[in-house]
């Protein structure tokens, strides 16, 4: 239930208050990057892209393009020789010497209109010498594969990424825990299987768009639909050799990102063009086709799992070898590989573990961050393997999961001791909601019916010292303005931050405004809007800032009233004294201060609270064993289940109902948590049933909504039960941890398990399209 507007909601944490970002979204008033008006001086950029997956650039001829009226100029790789990259610095603004994937930017054109720029692109001739492409990650990791980055050994990278020089391996993360060889001999059942998870696209409904302008004095402004304004400032300023303070990023509302607008993506191109053609803003927006084939993808994964348990079904050993199809460059891919590595057991307690998580350069699109950051791909393998093992040892999957799921105090594969987690309750809630014990009959003779459950965990994947900061400004009308650097991407973070500030300060939620758009010149620093980390990390910063402001208010009043601040409180926007029962509205204090007694002057003045947060306890992990004290800040865990029917005549899977349960520590806004669970589940379901980039010889064959289908309103089950479990996070604001990504993590595995329950078939390469399911039914003799 949503709390009605025009109310004063005090102590709003834990209440489903109305969101503060949505009114203008229903009236058409919300401003996204493409909506900003730049006037007639606006120039447009288009890009000549590589048609080849792997080739040397022999010659670029843009002379005809330059003669086209309206064309301002071009830029190529030679204009910007510096390497950029979030973790591993391995790419340039434009291809230099060599192209490594179909769609790579080779030449940028600036013109007075988009149409002229596009026409100019067609007039550019690029001569290539074709090289053998690497199109499979497992082959790519072998010594026989052609080298995609011969200079890999010289690339800059942080100390937690382990590239292998003279290979295509951009990161190799290992875990060695216990004695795996000895453990196999103790196992009563072992499952060994390979799973192949395809590349998928993020598909935000708002395509990427960015506008860049460089003033004659060298100051650069970038307006972009981005999850990472501060990271873009840092990376681009460095690559362009300008001070960070001369690089300003303005980030309006985002029309969906899901990770593809994190880090530096296509923004580098208009920025490069603006550096060359100063004085006018230059806009670059991706077409929907480019959005599909040129943009960061969720990288493909080949995952080889061997897992065993004793005769009671207790897990004993897991060997997990993952080959990530990282693509031509590695903005996030190397860290997805790391996250997949340290979380490679899934949320299971397993004493003996050997993991190799390997990121491989291929001549495919570049692997980026995608909601879940490797976890959906990992769980698609691990959780299906668990379902297989449960069947093999003769245990009900729910019993098997409950028996083996992690619990507070368990030592994880990395050596970290896990905090209190409510995953067992999550499993129970899901089983209950789906009437797990009851086997329903199919609704028609041509249907098969089944249920499946899968688990999920995920930790924020980020550098150990990713930080947040916030300002809380008190206004003379009694309202409060919260400034943050994290993005409102649709998840509702501005609402959650207002709730946290209101709770900590003692004012009604409705009196707190969160200032946007994010602007690196005025907004306090935030690492990035990724990793489901804002509620927790930025929430802590906001809480600290609000507490700082609160203390300042109380100190002023205490002095003016000659009282002890300990006897004062702020309630409903009023400072009250428990001792004297006096009260005063904060609006009378927070800007103009208070008079001292006996006309003795004034105290106080405009009040601004400041706060920040950075975890201090994450340690490094040993390069050979993956062991360390604390690999991550925390895990959010949960479970998901579905009941499905399979139509034997068409192979079509219909999801009849679904249940999701996650331990969020504390739900700051329960209704928004449920929104994340529902939306995330449907995105996951969409990838289970429909989605995959069809890459043939490096070319994406389905770069449109017609050929790359995502779930529509007609595809989704009407009944989705959601459950919030709350085992408080010790260092979360009011006990909260994140939930943005997790709901899509178990979806593919849950559908796969239900498919097995219904048909007895294991299909280990999603999506489970009607055609694929039908052929499998045919092959198994279940239909003729």
């Amino acid at each position: 239930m949503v709390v009605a507007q025009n109310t004063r909601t005090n102590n709003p944490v834990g209440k489903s208050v109305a969101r503060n970002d949505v009114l203008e979204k229903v009236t058409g008033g919300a401003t996204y990057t493409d909506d900003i008006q730049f006037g007639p001086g606006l120039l447009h950029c288009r890009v000549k892209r590589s048609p080849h997956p792997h080739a040397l650039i022999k010659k670029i001829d843009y002379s005809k393009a330059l003669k086209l009226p309206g064309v301002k100029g071009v830029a190529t790789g030679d204009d910007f020789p510096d390497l950029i990259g979030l973790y591993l610095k391995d790419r340039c603004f434009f291809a230099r010497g060599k192209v490594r994937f179909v769609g790579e930017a080779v030449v940028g054109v600036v013109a007075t209109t988009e149409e002229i720029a596009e026409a100019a692109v067609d007039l550019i001739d690029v001569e290539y010498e074709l090289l053998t492409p690497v199109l499979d990650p497992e082959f790519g990791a072998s010594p026989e594969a052609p080298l995609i980055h011969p200079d890999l050994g010289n690339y800059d990278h942080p100390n937690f990424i382990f590239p292998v020089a003279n290979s295509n391996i951009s990161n190799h993360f290992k875990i060695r825990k216990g004695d795996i060889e000895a453990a196999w001999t103790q196992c009563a059942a072992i499952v060994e299987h390979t799973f192949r998870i395809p590349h998928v696209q993020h598909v935000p409904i708002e395509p990427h768009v960015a506008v860049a302008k460089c003033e004659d004095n060298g100051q650069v402004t970038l307006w972009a639909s981005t999850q990472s304004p501060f990271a873009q400032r840092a990376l681009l300023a460095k690559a362009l050799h300008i001070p960070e303070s001369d690089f300003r990023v303005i980030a309006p509302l985002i029309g969906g990102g899901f990770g593809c607008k994190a880090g530096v993506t296509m923004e580098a191109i208009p920025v490069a063009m603006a550096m060359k053609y100063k004085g006018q803003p230059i806009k670059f927006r991706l077409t929907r086709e480019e959005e599909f084939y040129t943009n960061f993808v969720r990288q493909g994964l080949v995952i080889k799992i061997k897992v065993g348990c004793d005769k009671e079904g207790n897990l004993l050993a897991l060997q997990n070898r993952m080959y990530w199809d990282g693509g031509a460059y590695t903005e996030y891919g190397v860290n997805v590989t790391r996250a997949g590595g340290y979380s490679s057991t899934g949320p299971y307690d397993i004493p003996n573990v050997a993991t190799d998580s390997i990121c491989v350069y291929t001549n495919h699109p570049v692997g980026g961050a995608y909601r879940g950051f490797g976890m959906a791909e990992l769980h698609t393998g691990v959780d299906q393997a668990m379902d297989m093992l449960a069947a093999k040892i003769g245990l009900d999957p729910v019993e098997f999961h409950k028996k083996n799921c992690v619990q507070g105090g368990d030592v994880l594969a990395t050596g970290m001791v896990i905090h209190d987690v409510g995953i067992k309750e999550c499993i129970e809630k899901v089983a209950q909601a789906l009437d797990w014990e009851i086997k329903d009959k199919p609704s028609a003779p041509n249907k098969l019916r089944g249920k499946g459950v899968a688990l999920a965990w995920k930790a924020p994947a980020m550098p150990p010292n990713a930080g947040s900061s916030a300002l809380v400004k008190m206004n003379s009308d009694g309202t409060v303005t919260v400034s943050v650097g994290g993005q409102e991407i649709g998840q509702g973070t501005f609402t959650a931050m207002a709730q946290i500030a209101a709770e900590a300060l003692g004012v009604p939620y409705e009196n707190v405004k969160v200032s946007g758009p994010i602007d690196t010149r005025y907004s306090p620093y935030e690492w990035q809007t990724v990793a489901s980390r804002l509620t927790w990390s930025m929430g802590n910063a906001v809480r600290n800032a609000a507490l700082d402001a609160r203390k300042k208010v109380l100190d002023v009043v205490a002095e003016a009233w000659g009282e002890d601040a300990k006897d004062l409180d702020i309630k409903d926007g009023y400072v009250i004294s428990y001792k004297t029962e006096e009260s005063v509205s904060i609006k009378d204090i927070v800007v103009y201060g208070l008079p001292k007694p006996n006309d003795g002057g004034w105290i106080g003045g405009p009040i601004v609270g400041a706060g920040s947060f950075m975890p201090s306890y994450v340690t490094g992990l040993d390069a050979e064993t993956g062991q360390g004290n604390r690999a991550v800040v925390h895990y959010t865990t949960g479970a998901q289940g579905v009941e499905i029917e399979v139509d034997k005549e068409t192979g079509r899977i219909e999801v009849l109902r679904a249940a999701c349960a996650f331990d969020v520590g504390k739900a700051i806004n329960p209704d928004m948590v449920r929104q994340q669970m529902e939306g995330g589940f449907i995105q996951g379901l969409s990838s289970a049933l429909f989605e995959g980039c069809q890459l043939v010889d490096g070319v994406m064959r389905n770069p449109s909504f017609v050929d790359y289908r995502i779930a529509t309103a007609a595809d989704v089950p009407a009944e989705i039960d959601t459950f919030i479990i709350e085992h408080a996070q010790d260092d979360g604001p009011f006990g909260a941890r994140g939930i943005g990504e997790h709901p899509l993590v178990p979806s593919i595995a849950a559908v796969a398990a239900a498919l097995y329950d219904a048909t007895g078939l294991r299909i280990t390469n999603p999506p489970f399209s009607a055609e694929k399911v039908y052929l499998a039914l045919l092959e198994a003799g279940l239909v003729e």
Partner: protein
Amino acid sequence: MSFHRITIRINGNLEQVDVPGNLTLLQMLRDKLGLTGTKNGCASGECGACTVILNGDAVNSCMVVAAECDGAEITTIEGLASSGDLDMVQKMILEEGGVQCGFCTPGILMSARALLNRNPHPTEFDIRDAISGNLCRCTGYNRIVTAISRAAEAESAAVK
């Protein structure tokens, strides 16, 4: 390039616009009239973000040639709320929590309004069908479907 002078009634106001022959209605709304509430998600008729009501029907404005709209009546998201009051579909989508990033929202609301105008008592199937051309990547759709169904109920209760 040939220009056409067209007269349209947009959100209740008469407007005269000069448009080149290849301009889409979406481009005219966003670039010529500054009505940026209508979104461009694909420019190829596949996502529904650009949905407006044209002579009573929900259409993908990216697939309509502006020059052919002479004499047409058009409602965009900016014209949905009348004299400061939110339309019932706007109210209900807010109450149901059917808005996240909001990029699909204008298009969905216009599809919903057109549906309720021609069918005041839609079934759940009718609603899902009416918005099946409007892609949303955030919400999972069910709250939107409930919102439209509640809007229909509220409107028919008000008529009674």
